[in-house]
């Protein structure tokens, strides 16, 4: 068991080491890709093997990492439980499919560039797997930061594009801001409980032995998830992260980066459960994020950005479920969303690959040119909209049920409205890009098999999970009876709006925008949030640094220079006494002697 888990974790790491330390292999490009794909494939196989064997109890292994006088201060190790195993399978599966897909998607890259890409990919997989397997907060933090690093590297993969460089740095900074809270929270928790270890912390939580007053601590830890999982107001990095290659977006949005925050909250849920105020905050912020992002998705014209906002929105769903004390619902949605969002991104990548633009206004009737891509995109869209019997229906219902049962009325309403908007903006994309009447330029055609097979695998899984849910009826055991009907009705209404507006053109989009005037205006400007963040960054951080820089150079150092200049000047003045004429010196001696005489008379 331990060795299998180590294999899951170790294979991508070995691939990374090999590629990082053997430049000839890396620069070969395709060779590097094969190494990386083989490693993540082996990792996937090992993860599946682990997952298929029923787990009797949580397995924990630890090794000392930072020594201290009385026992290790920090250890590293493995924490294997059912949730972790499911996450391992999701991560390795999506990473594997993304890497295979990239083989064809990035065929235009130069070999060294391709090698670099796969080096980062291997590191990314390793980092995320290490996070999932972390048995304590410090290891989670370590891999958490590494995940951030990898997303920085991959978002900025095309580093000579200024926009990509900006987006990468923005992603790193924004998530790092959340991490300031995360680190502080971990330190506070350690001081309060004396341990970083999940087993010990969960045992204390189960026995109600946690010290009181952990609300601030857990809030700070939650801030980490706010950054990583793109919750309001730190969601601003995510849409910009679209500057990376599309397969990277699929990876970041489905199984790695953004999943990390939600995973952390579900993992540490026993601790959050001990602090109801923080839990309530998580639910409210989650629901608000979901709604906010959904409105912004409605006005985006870049296909990848629509998907990006929908990710933010769905992350809000997951967080709301976690905040409603239903971490299993949050995790369920994380898994189903991971699969269909990877599917949507990869399908969008195939579209972009075929038509050479991201702008949905320049697309049209693609369903006929790209039937395979169109089909799988439709599957993903239906799942995201929450249509029975696809996976998204069940996980979304579980989330809504959890929020309803937790008596969170307003968040529930926000999430319900989000469900409607989700269906609307996704079908807006479908109608504009895949149907409609605008002929696309050129002769787009379906993606090659290397790209198509991952798409089909994801589509089949999305359907399969849904059908399994329909057959076994799991997911919404405690849901109110009216909920499935309501959620289906909301989705149908959303689809109806999109159909009427963008397909049948009974209502013109412009008229709709006018009707919703201020909202449309604000959403197009991202509610001014990006501008506000930029203003804070420029005004506060830069202003302060300019000030300090000036103070240091011209005040602190200025005073030193004044002292030095005075010394120089004094020396210069005193030098003049030294005239070189004997008479002057004799006068000097005489005056000095006189002064001494007088002094001796005064202080005798």
């Amino acid at each position, binding site marked *: 068991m331990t060795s299998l888990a180590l294999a899951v974790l170790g294979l991508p790491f070995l691939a990374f080491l090999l590629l990082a330390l053997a430049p000839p292999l890396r620069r070969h490009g395709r060779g590097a890709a094969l190494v990386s794909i083989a490693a993540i494939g082996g990792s996937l196989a090992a993860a599946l093997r682990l997952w298929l064997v029923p787990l009797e109890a949580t397995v924990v292994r630890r090794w*000392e*990492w*930072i*020594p*201290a*006088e009385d026992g290790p*201060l920090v250890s590293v190790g493995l924490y294997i439980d059912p949730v972790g195993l499911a996450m391992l399978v999701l991560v390795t599966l999506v990473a594997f499919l993304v890497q295979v897909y990239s083989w064809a998607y990035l065929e235009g890259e130069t070999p060294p560039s391709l090698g670099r890409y796969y080096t980062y990919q291997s590191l990314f997989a390793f980092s995320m797997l290490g996070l999932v397997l972390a048995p304590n907060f*410090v290891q989670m*933090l*370590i*891999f958490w*930061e*590494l995940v951030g*690093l990898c997303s*920085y590297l991959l978002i*900025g993969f095309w*580093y*000579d*594009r*200024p926009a990509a*460089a*900006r987006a*990468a*740095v923005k992603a*790193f*900074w924004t998530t*790092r*801001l959340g*991490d*300031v809270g995360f*680190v*502080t929270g971990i*330190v*506070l928790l*350690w*001081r309060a409980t004396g341990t970083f270890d999940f087993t010990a912390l969960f045992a204390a939580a189960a026995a109600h032995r946690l010290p009181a007053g952990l609300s601030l601590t857990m809030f700070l830890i939650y801030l980490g998830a706010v950054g990583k999982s793109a919750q309001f107001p730190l969601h601003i990095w995510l849409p910009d992260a679209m500057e990376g290659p599309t397969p990277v977006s699929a990876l970041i949005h489905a199984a790695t980066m953004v999943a990390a925050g939600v995973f952390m909250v579900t993992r540490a849920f026993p601790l959050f459960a001990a602090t109801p105020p923080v839990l309530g905050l998580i639910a409210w912020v989650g629901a608000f994020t979901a709604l906010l992002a959904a409105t912004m998705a409605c006005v985006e014209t870049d296909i990848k950005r629509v998907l990006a906002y929908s990710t933010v929105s769905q992350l809000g769903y997951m967080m709301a479920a976690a905040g409603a004390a239903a971490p299993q619902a949050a995790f369920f949605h994380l898994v189903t969303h991971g699969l269909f969002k990877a599917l949507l991104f990869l399908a969008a990548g195939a579209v972009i690959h075929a038509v050479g633009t991201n702008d949905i206004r320049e697309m049209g009737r693609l369903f006929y040119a790209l039937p395979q891509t169109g089909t799988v995109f439709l599957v993903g869209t239906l799942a995201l909209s929450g249509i029975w019997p696809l996976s998204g229906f069940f996980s979304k219902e579980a989330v809504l049920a959890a929020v309803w049962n937790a008596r969170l009325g307003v968040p529930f309403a926000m999430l319900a409205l989000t469900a409607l908007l989700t269906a609307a903006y996704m079908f807006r994309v479908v109608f504009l890009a895949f149907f409609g009447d605008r002929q696309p330029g050129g002769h787009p055609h379906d993606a090659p098999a290397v790209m198509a097979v991952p798409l089909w695998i994801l589509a089949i899984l999305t359907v399969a999970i849904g059908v399994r849910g329909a057959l076994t009826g799991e997911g919404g055991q405690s849901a109110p009876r009216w909920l499935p009907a309501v959620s289906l009705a909301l989705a149908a209404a959303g689809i109806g709006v999109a159909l009427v507006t963008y397909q049948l053109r009974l209502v013109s989009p412009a008229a709709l925008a006018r009707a919703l005037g201020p909202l449309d205006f604000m959403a197009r400007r991202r509610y001014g949030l990006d501008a506000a963040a930029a203003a804070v960054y420029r005004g506060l*951080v*830069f202003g*302060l*640094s*300019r000030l*300090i*820089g*000036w103070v*240091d*150079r*011209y*005040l*602190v*150092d*200025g*005073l*030193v*220079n*004044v002292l*030095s*200049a005075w010394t*120089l*000047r004094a020396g210069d003045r005193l030098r003049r006494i030294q005239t070189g004429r004997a008479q002057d010196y004799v006068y000097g001696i005489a005056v000095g002697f006189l002064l001494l005489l007088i002094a001796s008379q005064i202080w005798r």
Partner: protein
Amino acid sequence: MTSVPVLSIVTWAPFVGALLIMFTARQRPLAVRLIAATATAISAALSVYVFLAFDPEAGFQFYEKLPLVPSLGVSYELGVDGLNVLLVLLTSIIIVAGVFASWTVTVRSQEFYALLLALVTGVYGVFVSLDLLVFFLFYELAVLPMYLLIGIWGSSGEVRPRGLFAWAFRATGVGTKEYAAMKLTLYLLFGSAFILVGIFALYVSAGNASFSFLDAEMTAFDPALQRWVFLAFYVGFGILAGIWPLHTWSPDGHASAPTAVSMLHAGVLMKLGAYGIVRLGIELLPRGASGWASLVGTIACLNIVYGALAAMAQRDLKYVIAYSSVSHMGIVMLGAATLTEAGLGGALFQMFAHGIMTGLFFALVGLVYEKAHSREIARMGGFGRAMPGIATAFTLAGLSSLGLPATAGFVAEFMTFLGAWRSAHPWWLFPAVAGTFLTAVYILRVAKQIFWAAAAPDFPPLADARGPEWVALALLSFVLVFFGMLPALALGPIESGLAPVLLRLLP
């Protein structure tokens, strides 16, 4: 115990190399470099041996003693324990890298290498000396060659005289290398006056006619004496460690110094200040240390945030790195001021980590400058395509400085955080954590501007690092990641060295 004086060889091998260079290698640049590389390699190999053979259970080891002036109790006494064994290793790594990084110095390279090696002997000597007076002599030996190295081989920057004191800027010639050399030397000599007074006060007060550290360790000094002597040590060594507001020699000095000197100075000499505070200040004067801890820690917090913000405001690449040292030395001093096991461990580990990372930084800045002939950040851009190796190493050093896990910087900072929250002033944690965020802002901003985005137009075709330069980059990068992944290797000795310090700190 071996009878071979290992530490003496480590210390004096560079000095012998310097003599050889002066007297045998006239007009033969390659011979100069080979002698320098060999001499430092001998020291480095032996210090690796000392590090590997170090026994955490044994206290001071590789001990040597040779009476110099028996009547006064002055002796040549060397030894390593957990506090300095890592710093000896650090010095070796940096000087080896420094020799390779300055392979291309052409002007008077003979004198350059001779002075550099003499300087290193001083640094080794300070770290391994257990006699306070000899310690001080080595300290002076380390400072003086610096003046010539900066004054002759340095480079001048541009500082516009502005503000109320513009006349003073013009009068002193701020920005020139001569100014920087003089400023650095004066500051450090000013500091060393405090140190000397402190050492003599201890000598007289102990009353056992011995300058030996081991004897001083046995003495319980009067608390009132401890208070003011600690302050003298804090100011004296603190100047070298770059404490606010006595830090302004460091940006000017480091920016003007030639590459290897910047590496050695920011990488090792600043650590020497912090080492002095831990060794003489905290270990010998525990009551004095606990009395002043609030001040030391608060100034350290100021260093962290102020240094980071000042770094962000710089336009000259070398100044950015120099101010980042001011900020990072704040972490060291903060860890020390917590007076806790985790904090002091973090401080000592940060000395090592920061030494390596800043050495790497200055090596890289030197390479970039040598190839692009510019240090002005705003003019540069898109260098990543032409120099991928340099860009990668710069990113790595940057990540370590912003405390990314899997680099040595993370472990050091995290332990300091733990110590801070455990100390008498938990609020120290917040500026420290904020500092890591600010570091991310300025480091990534600089990296983005220089290496990413579109290529800047007005530069000749640029090249990546070559031959000997790679040795420096690869060595430092490797150490940074290696100790980041296996911190226990370094923390084992550190823990053993801290045990007596912590014991003495108990009330």
